[in-house]
């Protein structure tokens, strides 16, 4: 009989909800001096996306395109 093991995802979801509650109470500047930060490349990509994303309505639905 094979053993199937699965991590406790329900506990992970509960933990995520718990941390959300905690982080919502923290000041906005929290984590600014943390060692692990999102990489500069990711931040630049997001900012670039904000510049080029254009919303359109396609067949009645909100959609968008990116000017490359």
């Amino acid at each position, binding site marked *: *009989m*094979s*053993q*199937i*093991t*699965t*991590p406790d*995802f329900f506990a*992970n*979801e509960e*933990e*995520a*909800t718990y*941390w*959300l509650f905690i*982080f*919502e109470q*923290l000041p*906005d*500047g*929290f*984590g*600014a001096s*943390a060692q*692990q*930060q*999102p*990489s500069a490349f*990711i*931040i630049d*990509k*997001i*900012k670039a*996306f*904000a*510049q080029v*994303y*254009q*919303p359109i309505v396609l067949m009645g639905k*909100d959609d*968008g395109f990116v000017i490359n």
Partner: protein
Amino acid sequence: MLSDEQLVKDFIAGRCSSIDVLIDRHKAKIFSYILMCVKQQVLAEDIFQEAFIRVIKTLKNGRYADSGKFSSWVMRIAHNLIIDHYRKQKNKSVISNDNYEYDLFNSSQFSDQSIEEKLVVDQLRKEVSMLVGLLPDNQREVVVMRHYRDLSFKEIAEETNVSINTALGRMRYALMNLRRLAEERNISLTLS
């Protein structure tokens, strides 16, 4: 200093620099939250990126209803993405190898390399490295960026200030030159 609400209004009105301020202001806290949940830098960055892309799309599509703190809204989006990630993982099951009559992984394709294989691979890497060093500068640059730094052709084009087609063309010529150089020096570039 402008408030988050004012920056959001400015961004919706078309001032793109406002979202830069919002991202810089809140990135540390939001990323810390995501990382605390998923505990992996790369996965946290994926979720972080996806969360902000959704934020940008919602703001630009005029679907944002200002009903509280901007950072709380973004964290809720991140939270939902984290939950989605866990639920996708739930569908993948892990099977133990213990109760089979034979070991599924007792196969040469899963075993470590032998000393001989390691020596062959090392030698091949040195030869390839030597051949790459013989390429013209612009071709060598593309090869190094693609295969050693794992950049996409779009990123290579941006970094070297050329079009994607030029970057692709340089790679093509680099590969043709590598093959020719290997033939001239009687170097076999295959593992057998």
